[in-house]
């Protein structure tokens, strides 16, 4: 009886909820995500034109994009972009930088050890843990099957 009521209420609320503006959000994510990738590609191409080889050029690109993400976060611009672009600005490496720099800024008041350093990975931590774990597993599989 109680569960039935909860189910009925949950269905009722779902039908009351405004839907997110799907098309608009998708477009924003597509355009902003694409632009971020374009910037990254431009940096890679520029690095390559300075004589870096392919792998080095990608490293330069990644470092520069992380810097840009961190800079825009510090200037208070990245959250404005993220508000509209959603996953478009969370998924690229700039979003990763944002997820580390934003808690670092936020928790500065609690000190550099227990604040900044401890809380820095509060959002990015899971990505690191499972990212590294997944890469180790893939590495093993690669070693076995190749």
């Amino acid at each position, binding site marked *: 009886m109680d569960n039935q009521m909860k189910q009925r*209420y949950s269905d009722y609320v779902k039908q009351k909820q405004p839907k997110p503006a799907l098309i608009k959000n998708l477009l924003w994510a597509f355009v902003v995500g694409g632009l971020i990738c374009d910037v990254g590609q431009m940096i890679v191409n520029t690095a390559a034109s300075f004589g870096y080889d392919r792998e080095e050029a990608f490293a330069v690109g990644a470092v520069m994009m992380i810097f840009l993400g961190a800079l825009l*976060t510090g200037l208070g611009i990245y959250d404005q972009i993220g508000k509209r672009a959603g996953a478009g600005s969370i998924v690229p490496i700039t979003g990763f930088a944002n997820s580390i720099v934003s808690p670092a800024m*936020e928790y500065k008041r609690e000190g550099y050890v227990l604040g900044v350093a401890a809380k820095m990975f509060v959002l990015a931590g899971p990505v690191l843990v499972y990212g590294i774990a997944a890469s180790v597993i893939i590495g093993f599989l690669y070693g076995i099957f190749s």
Partner: protein
Amino acid sequence: MVFFPEEEKIDLASNKVGRQTLRLDSRPAIIAAASIVGPKEGEGPLKEYYDVVLQDDYFGEKSWEKAESKILRETAKLAVRKAGLKPGDIDYMLGGDLLNQIISASFAARELKIPFFGLYGACSTMAESLALGSILIDGQYADYVVAVTSSHFSSAERQFRYPLEHGNQRPPTSQWTVTGSGAMIVAAQGKGPRITHVTPGRVIDLGIKDANNMGAAMAPATADTIVTHFRDTGFSQRDYDVIATGDLGKIGKDITQEIVFREGYDISAVYTDCGIEVYSDDQDVNSGGSGCGCSAVVTCGYFYSRMLRGEIKRMLLVATGALLSPVSTQQGETIPGIAHAVAIESTFKGE
């Protein structure tokens, strides 16, 4: 074995009406109210009703938490001053906020040195503190009490959601925590709108888990309190010029109105929600305002002024709270809601 048969039970609670309402025969007066808000609220549609609009939401402090405590403290002081009193004249302070261990209120009480009851009712704290304060007055345990609460967008974000600079997207059901504080001085005697009834709410949970949809989580408790208040007292929407819920936002308000309607009361003509009043649509707040400060600043600023002017003769304040914590959300718990109702009557035309 029955020692006390039913007919011998004496009902000593003579001021209790119906299931859970209290009737305050001495009708404690709200002799002063004060509100301080942040810059965003100061750009909202009610800006002229607030006592102070801050230019800087740090309020000259080093952290959001310190700023919030200072806002609460200054609001309480301002209310005391507006009542023509000194902090030492106030018998008790009742207050709370959203931060862990209600540090905004207790740290403010440390400075004010008024005997302090710390309350946690999430965003329902304005009505909870007002209700308990007026009961203290009615019971002749105090001459003056101050009921006060606060919230701060940035301290609430960091406790309940994400770091401010994190680039996340807010869903359309989400609400914006009000930066601000409201305080009321309740007195045994004096001029001002009077508190006639109090209906404390029950905690009700219909299984909403989405912390971004607190309006829907609180709506059943809100509707329950409103309907119970009507049944206990015999009042209905016809007895009120305004019924104002705390911070349900657009979706929660809609749902509450519908549930109350199904129980036989059409409150739509007099019903509003402080979370909708506090911001305008172009302020990018999605479903509306929230936080302890939401019902506090709208009631202490907007509604109190209108009651003093006689534009509102009777209002029912129904401040609403979502009793979740970051831990309970992470553990997959549903969100219990609560709502406390306080009936306030203006004394404008002929005491």
